């Protein structure tokens, strides 16, 4: 059943990614079709997660691939908050291809399967994995907002005559939304890491490479907030910092799972 739901979800996300690409070339219908792709894909993936949760005895996304599946769902959920609005459609150009690719990777790693079990308690997994992944989803959205900011800023600097042709959120709006998203995501990451740290100490485990990079990620996002709120950083510099933070999120998600999940 989960396998049956995976394919339509992937097709919808793929259709959305292609639709957003078409929106860049010819705004209008492709963008609307893409938005419906996101909605239907999200609903299908929600059903997929529901099936996994119903079939499993405990928290079904404790494996690396399983957590990637949940991460994709959280990213798309966060995107849906703004993505359906017309000016934000271009945001989908960065979010939806990523979501489609990560969903394929999650399936290849066995993240769509049912019946996986972890020796950790469900409460721990919900708090630790859930909060960290929710924070990462927020950071992903913030990075997409920052990327859109840099793209629009570049067009303004180039004084493109076509600057008014495409509806894109204003620079100040993108800047403020990225800040707000990070301001919500960092506390979630902090709590998620704290729960993990308590468990680590209680079990007498050692700090692995993933934990180190995750703490580095936390530091970058914390620096982002401090620099913005205390040092008056904004605009291009802040956007580049957000992208740097997102690069670490990608490293944590993709490059180091073997260490943490081994």
């Amino acid at each position: 059943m989960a396998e049956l739901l995976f394919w339509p979800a992937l097709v919808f996300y793929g259709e959305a990614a292609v639709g957003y690409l078409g929106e860049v070339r010819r705004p209008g219908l492709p963008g609307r079709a893409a938005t419906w792709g996101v909605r239907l894909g999200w609903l299908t993936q929600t059903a997929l997660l529901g099936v996994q949760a119903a079939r499993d005895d405990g928290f079904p996304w404790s494996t690396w691939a399983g957590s990637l599946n949940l991460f994709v769902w959280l990213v798309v959920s966060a995107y849906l908050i703004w993505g359906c609005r017309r000016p934000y459609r271009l945001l989908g150009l960065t979010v939806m291809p990523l979501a489609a690719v990560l969903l394929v990777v999650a399936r290849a790693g066995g993240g769509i399967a049912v019946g996986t079990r972890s020796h950790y308690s469900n409460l721990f997994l919900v708090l630790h994995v859930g909060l960290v992944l929710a924070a990462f989803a927020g950071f992903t959205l913030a990075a997409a907002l920052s990327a859109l900011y840099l793209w629009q800023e570049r067009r303004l600097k180039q004084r493109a005559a076509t600057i008014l042709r495409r509806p894109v959120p204003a620079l100040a709006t993108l800047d403020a939304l990225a800040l707000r998203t990070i301001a919500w995501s960092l506390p979630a990451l902090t709590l998620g890491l704290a729960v993990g740290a308590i468990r680590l100490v209680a079990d007498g485990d050692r700090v692995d490479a993933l934990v180190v990079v995750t703490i580095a990620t936390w530091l970058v996002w914390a620096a982002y907030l401090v620099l913005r709120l205390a040092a008056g950083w904004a605009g291009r510099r802040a956007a580049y910092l957000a992208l740097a933070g997102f690069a670490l999120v990608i490293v944590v998600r993709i490059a180091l799972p073997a260490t943490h999940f081994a």
Partner: protein
Amino acid sequence: MQLVLVGTSHHRASLELRERVALDSEQGAALTARLAEGGGEAVCLSTCNRTELYVVGRDADATERAAVAALAELEPEVESALYRLRDHAAALHLFRVAAGLDSLVPGEGEILGQVRVAYEAGVTGALLDRVFRHALHAGRKVRAQTAIGESPASVSSAAAALAEQVFGDLEGRAVMLVGAGAISEQAARNLISRQARIAFVANRTAERAEELARRLGAEPIPLDRLAEALTGVDVVVSSTSAPGFVLEAASVEGALGQRRGRQLLLVDLAVPRDLDPAIHDLDGCYLYDIDDLEAIVSETLVGRRREAERAETIVSAEAEKFHEWHAGLDVVPAIASLRARAEEIREAELRKADALLGRLDDSQRRAVESITTQIVNKLLHLPTVRMKQAAAAADGVVYAETVRHLFGLGEDSPEGGFDR
């Protein structure tokens, strides 16, 4: 009743000539009242680009002559610049006007409001009421279904649209005007219409700065306080006749530290330029000069023209609907007479058969009533539809006359031929 349009616009008349035939609301009302005397209808549409009289009368030639004379009274020279349209052509023209397709800048939105005001001030009856309401509907439909009105049509509105690209909602955003001339004021009005606030007016001559600042509710400042004022504003619009830069990049860079990363949009409408082009290279600063803005306006005009083609299709379809309704007016009296005659015959026949029907109970009587009504309706349905179709194809009057003749409509005695 026929619809007659007599008027002139920027297509046919110079600005000087249009000024001489322009009418304010009171003059327009007086003129329409005069033209509508004796049960007619009249609407006067007078804007900076056009003066048009829409008049309805029984005799189209006489109505047109009266409208021409009314405009020629204002300025005899205008007569050679007048266009004269009737019925479908006049309605189509009004629909295009309401949609902004006949405007100097295709798709400009102000005209729709002006058409509404003219309609409300006019003396309207069945025909003008219908044509103006339909035109307003067509204008709204064009704006809703095409992007013709979304892009800026002037340099100052392009500047305001750019400010929205940078800041989003302009409500409360502070603007500084450098220069107190007409161009600065026009740009300021455009920004104010989008809820921006004019914070400062800087000018070489203090009196002019004070005068404009008073009108806009801003603070007048001398030019040497520009850099200082930069810390608190979001948009700078400059339009002075100074021979050199009034604002150097170094001054702006000095103010950036106190702006805490807030974006700054600078619009230079002056020739020669007022603002140092190097400002554009500073982080968070976006400087647009007159050439940049004109390039944006030209680009958006291309888009407007593309959308205008779609808008023409919508307007034509709406005008066609109106035409069908209007043409149907020719056959409506014939249809109504035919139905009345049929009903009269049905009732007469029922009365004759009363002796027989007297033996029927109430429900049987109702059934007979219903059956005879249905027979009449079914018999008349196709002729009614065909007459309306013929009316739309311009044969309506012929059909109506034929029906009147064949069924003896308008003749005194209904007993004359039908019930024998």
